[in-house]
């Protein structure tokens, strides 16, 4: 068979491609990630205002309506404009390269899905400038309060919010169809299901959840929009409607949504621990399958967000059972990672530190999760800062840290340069300390009875709030070494070889950065299971020749 040859030089593609309608998944991936971090900064700024307000008990920083709009937009931006896009960015970069495909199944659909994001992003941001201000009832938008529309205008912050979320749903479904088709249909020869990297398994699981769950949110949101602008009464008791119905529609999607967020991060951990422990992933098959058990269970737990809502007691008990069960496949993964680390040869690089820190935070969050699943406890802490602490531990403490780990790990591959270790470790330290300082105090606050979404609170809550705010400001600072690192490494970092981490995987058999069509027609045949550290087997046929060709090309490049 013909091998891919790697010509020493090629004309460098223009940077303007990142601002165009480009169908290369690797370009789209970078577009998603950079755009997502732009919105991360906006969401972060909103968080600083929130914590600035909450550093004192009184509502003295901003007007209460402003506070409510800000906390609502903080959550909405962070979810729909940061975390889902950044994960789609990782999917775009990693899925085709990890499975040996030249691109995604539907490249133009891919680009359309991306370009919807800045569109609905602008739409959402514009809601700050309409007369009534942005949506103000939290990212949940529970009726009736969310559609009270004090000014009565047709174009309201809430209406813009609903439209933006609907567009986000369209974009996500497009992406999901693409990712699922790609994974099912475009794997390299020899890559059966159980030779596929775990990241692809978790991506498949997560995107399946998007496909099944998103339409429920869309349906509920359409009905809410109709209640808001068309005078229907789906959720208005005066017209025979039921506010709790919205909650079912909302959470039927939004609970699986949290698995959409964490599953790829589980995938990242599963990819990185073997590399930086030089050891195979422990129980690879179980880790892969556990992803789908999580999918199944994840679809039947949504009422745990509604325990105090006014649902029947049998529902509370049933959903308590199903929710607790999710701890089991999740535990399988956690123990698998520990098994991978055990007796490994650990290298505490920046990506590894972020994974370890993420795992630490995740286990803590898992425990508070069990507490929240327990109905009598939840009836006390639901809608308090205990919940806010829990989910920020998962989202920031685990998911965001996992995303940072992924970025540091795959930056050399897709940008072609090495990020700076010193800045990376500083970033990790500030993030780990900042996140724990910010979110740990929220647990005693919730237990003591401080509700969430409040613009003011009783003085006895002041101490922990001050600590939390200090942690938040530290987190704000922590982003600086990250941005510095990304920008300077991109522009003038040391050039990366094709496999700086000495990792096993198809993407590491491509040059850094890969050509537009990755392996093109010359996809290597996969001949062994993934994560074969210490087993001394090649991953693909003719691996030695491929490595040789890559090294030769790099040497020629350096000689230039």
């Amino acid at each position, binding site marked *: 068979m013909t091998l891919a040859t790697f010509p020493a030089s090629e004309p460098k593609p223009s940077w303007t491609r990142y601002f165009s309608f480009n169908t290369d998944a690797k370009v789209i991936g970078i577009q998603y990630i950079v755009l997502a971090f732009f919105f991360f900064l906006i969401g972060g700024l909103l968080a600083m205002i929130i914590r600035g307000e909450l550093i004192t008990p009184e509502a003295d920083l901003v007007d209460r309506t402003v506070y409510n709009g800000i906390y609502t937009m903080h959550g909405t931006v962070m979810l729909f404009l940061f975390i889902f896009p950044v994960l789609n960015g990782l999917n775009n970069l990693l899925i085709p390269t990890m499975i040996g495909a030249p691109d995604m199944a539907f490249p133009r659909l891919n680009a359309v899905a991306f370009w919807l994001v800045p569109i609905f992003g602008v739409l959402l941001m514009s809601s700050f400038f309409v007369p009534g201000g942005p949506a103000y009832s939290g990212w949940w938008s529970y009726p009736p309060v969310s559609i009270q529309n004090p000014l009565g205008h047709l174009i309201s912050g809430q209406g813009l919010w609903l439209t933006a979320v609907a567009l986000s749903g369209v974009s996500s479904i497009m992406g999901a169809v693409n990712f699922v088709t790609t994974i099912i249909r475009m794997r390299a020869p020899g890559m059966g299901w159980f030779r596929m990297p775990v990241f692809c398994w978790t991506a498949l699981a997560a995107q399946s959840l998007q496909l099944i769950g998103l339409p429920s949110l869309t349906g509920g949101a359409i009905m809410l929009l109709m209640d808001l602008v068309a005078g*229907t009464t789906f959720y208005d008791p005066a017209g025979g409607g*039921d506010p709790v119905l919205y909650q079912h529609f909302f959470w039927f999607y939004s609970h699986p949504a949290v698995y959409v967020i964490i599953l790829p991060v589980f995938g990242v951990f599963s990819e990185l621990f073997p590399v930086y422990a030089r050891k195979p992933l422990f129980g690879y098959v179980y880790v892969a399958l556990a992803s789908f058990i999580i999918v199944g269970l994840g679809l039947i737990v949504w009422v745990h967000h509604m325990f105090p809502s006014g649902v029947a007691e049998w529902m509370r008990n049933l959903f308590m059972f199903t929710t607790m069960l999710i701890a089991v496949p999740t535990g399988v993964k956690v123990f698998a990672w520990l098994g991978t680390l055990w007796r490994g040869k650990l290298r505490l690089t920046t990506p590894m530190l972020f994974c370890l820190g993420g795992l630490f935070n995740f286990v803590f969050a898992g425990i508070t999760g069990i507490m929240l699943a327990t109905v009598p406890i939840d009836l006390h802490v639901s809608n308090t800062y205990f919940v806010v602490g829990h989910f920020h531990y998962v989202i920031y403490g685990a998911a965001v840290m996992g995303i940072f780990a992924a970025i540091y790990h795959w930056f050399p591959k897709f940008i072609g340069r090495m990020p700076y270790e010193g800045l990376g470790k500083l970033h990790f330290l500030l993030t780990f300390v900042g996140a724990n300082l910010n979110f740990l105090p929220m647990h005693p606050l919730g237990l003591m009875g401080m509700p969430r979404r409040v613009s003011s609170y009783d003085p006895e809550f002041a101490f922990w709030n001050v600590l939390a705010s200090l942690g938040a400001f530290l987190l704000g600072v922590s982003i600086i070494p990250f941005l510095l690192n990304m920008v300077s490494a991109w522009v003038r970092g040391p050039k990366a070889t094709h496999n700086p981490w000495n990792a096993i995987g198809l993407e590491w058999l491509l040059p850094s950065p890969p050509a537009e*069509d990755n392996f093109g027609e010359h996809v290597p045949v996969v001949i062994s299971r993934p994560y074969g550290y210490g087993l001394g087997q090649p991953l693909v046929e003719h691996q030695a020749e491929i490595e040789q060709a890559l090294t030769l090309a790099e040497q020629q490049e350096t000689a230039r």
Partner: protein
Amino acid sequence: MTSAYPAPDAESQHAEAHEKHNLTGFIIFLCSESVIFLAFFSGYALLKTSALDWLPPGVEGLEWRMPLINSVVLVSSSGTIYLAERAMARGSLWGFRAFWLLTMALGGYFLYGQAVEWSSLQFGFTSGTFGGTFYLLTGFHGLHVATGVGLMTLMLIKSFIPGNYSGGEQGVQATSLFWHFVDVIWIILFVLIYVWQRS
């Protein structure tokens, strides 16, 4: 980076693989789309069973005979679209166009029938949850029927482009799948709204 240009038969292999991708992707999309109908259906059922007075004042029930005729028309159109596909598989392009056009006509009649029914109703979109869910369900479904007719129009036009269907008919397959989907949704909707009229 590839060195050699792909060979011609590799290219048609590539195209064939891509066809399968397209159909896979479309099927996945349809599965997802069905969930939004499921959401609306469950909303309808929940609101209906928990309502004290489900029907708006002055409304005794829904007239079901005309919608039943409409349903027969729509279900038949699934039959005709199947026949159209069969004709195409046999290579009979004009046979395909004939059945295809018939399907479009039946779909168009369905939409007409829906509009006539809507105009004859004594309640509106804002007449309580009954009115809201009725128009939401039938309207959203009608939108899909209209989309289906639109897709069929597109495919019909494409069928006049020479050589268009010699290699494959994935557009026709997808459109046909969509049409069957719309049909099944209607059957469920009909049972839910017109058959199940007492609580």
